[in-house]
């Protein structure tokens, strides 16, 4: 009885104009307005936040931790945390920075836990060893793969190059190059100062260029 009456409190707020019209309205407004609607009890508003960020966060977390399946779980967890703590969100700040901070912290925790797990550590070491000891195919002038194969191989190498970057460099690099975040936003998300962000980004770019240079004409 008490449960039913309490459940009524979280039921969606009825908005005039029908569901379709309401969804269109939500798509047109800014993040902060959607957040405000969600806080006022509009359940469709939270769905709008999910549809705006699920794919972006998934790419970001996947590039950071390098595991598609685990990235899905971490993004789910990010949204659950957002839902749970939305009331505590400081609406003077950018919502995207807040949600990326949550996802980034979860990704960092995941990497930390993996480094403590000997099995995962062994797999990572093996992967790196394989990468280091694989014959240098591009130095073999006798064998020229076709363009399609070459392109695919180059993509794989670029992905590997990102995965090979040190964790704190990779995070900054992905936020800048793939998510297009500004230095200030990256500083907020990672909890570093601007100087550290610039220095890490510069080092990450240098490392990335060194890894992929032999594969780029």
């Amino acid at each position, binding site marked *: 009885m008490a*449960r039913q009456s*309490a459940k009524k409190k979280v039921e969606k707020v009825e908005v005039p104009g029908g569901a379709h019209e309401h969804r269109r309205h939500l798509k047109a407004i800014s993040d902060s307005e959607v957040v405000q609607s969600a806080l006022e009890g509009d359940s469709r508003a939270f769905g709008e936040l999910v549809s705006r960020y699920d794919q972006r966060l998934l790419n970001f977390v996947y590039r950071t931790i390098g595991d598609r399946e685990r990235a*899905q779980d971490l993004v789910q967890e990010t949204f*659950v945390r957002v839902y749970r703590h939305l009331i505590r969100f400081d609406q003077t700040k950018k919502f995207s920075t807040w949600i990326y901070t949550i996802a980034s912290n979860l990704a960092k925790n995941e990497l930390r836990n993996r480094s403590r797990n000997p099995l995962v550590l062994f797999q990572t070491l093996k992967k790196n060893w394989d990468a280091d000891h694989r014959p240098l195919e591009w130095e073999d002038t006798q064998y020229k793969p076709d363009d399609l194969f070459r392109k695919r191989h180059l993509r794989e190498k670029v992905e590997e190059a990102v995965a090979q970057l040190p964790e704190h460099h990779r995070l900054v690099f992905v936020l800048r190059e793939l998510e297009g975040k500004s230095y200030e936003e990256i500083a907020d998300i990672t909890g570093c100062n601007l100087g550290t962000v610039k220095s890490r980004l510069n080092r990450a770019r240098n490392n990335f260029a060194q890894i992929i240079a032999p594969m780029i004409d």
Partner: protein
Amino acid sequence: MKCSEILEHFSDYLDGVASSPMRAEIEAHLSECGDCQRYRDVVDRGVAILRDLPGAPLRDDFRPRLRHRIYHLDDERILDGGATSATTAVTALGMAAVLLLAAWSPALRSAPPTVRLLPIAATAPRIPAVRPMRLPQVREGFLTAATVRPASIGSVRTELWEDAHLLLQEYSPVSRQYRGQASLLRTGLENEH
């Protein structure tokens, strides 16, 4: 500008946050230095390939799963709300019990009072010296009164009666009351001898 300086400020240049003079210097260097040009090309192409990579696809059950989790999160929140009122009541009761204990604690902590009694010191009564008994005159060759040492006779008699006062004390009502002290007293006297 040296190549190492270009590497140091390359991110500022690439992201458009370098100052105008710095930007001009870097561009001038890039137009002359083949290695630095190559570096810029590698970064540009690498990043372009990276951005072109297909993203990780969302699983089909991603949103239904999320909806399910959030639905149950609401349930948890409601249950937590119900539990909160019960928790509050239990906490209030606990606080009351603690306050009651605190109020009664002086009474609980106080032990029965201890009184230290002064030890009763008593001296042994003086026993009058017993005169040596006069023995009848005996013939020569036998022991005479003079030959019997009065001290030894006296000592025999005193030994016989020396505990008499103690026996009296032992069975008197006063000694019963201070039985503990009496035993101590006896021990003390023995030590003196």
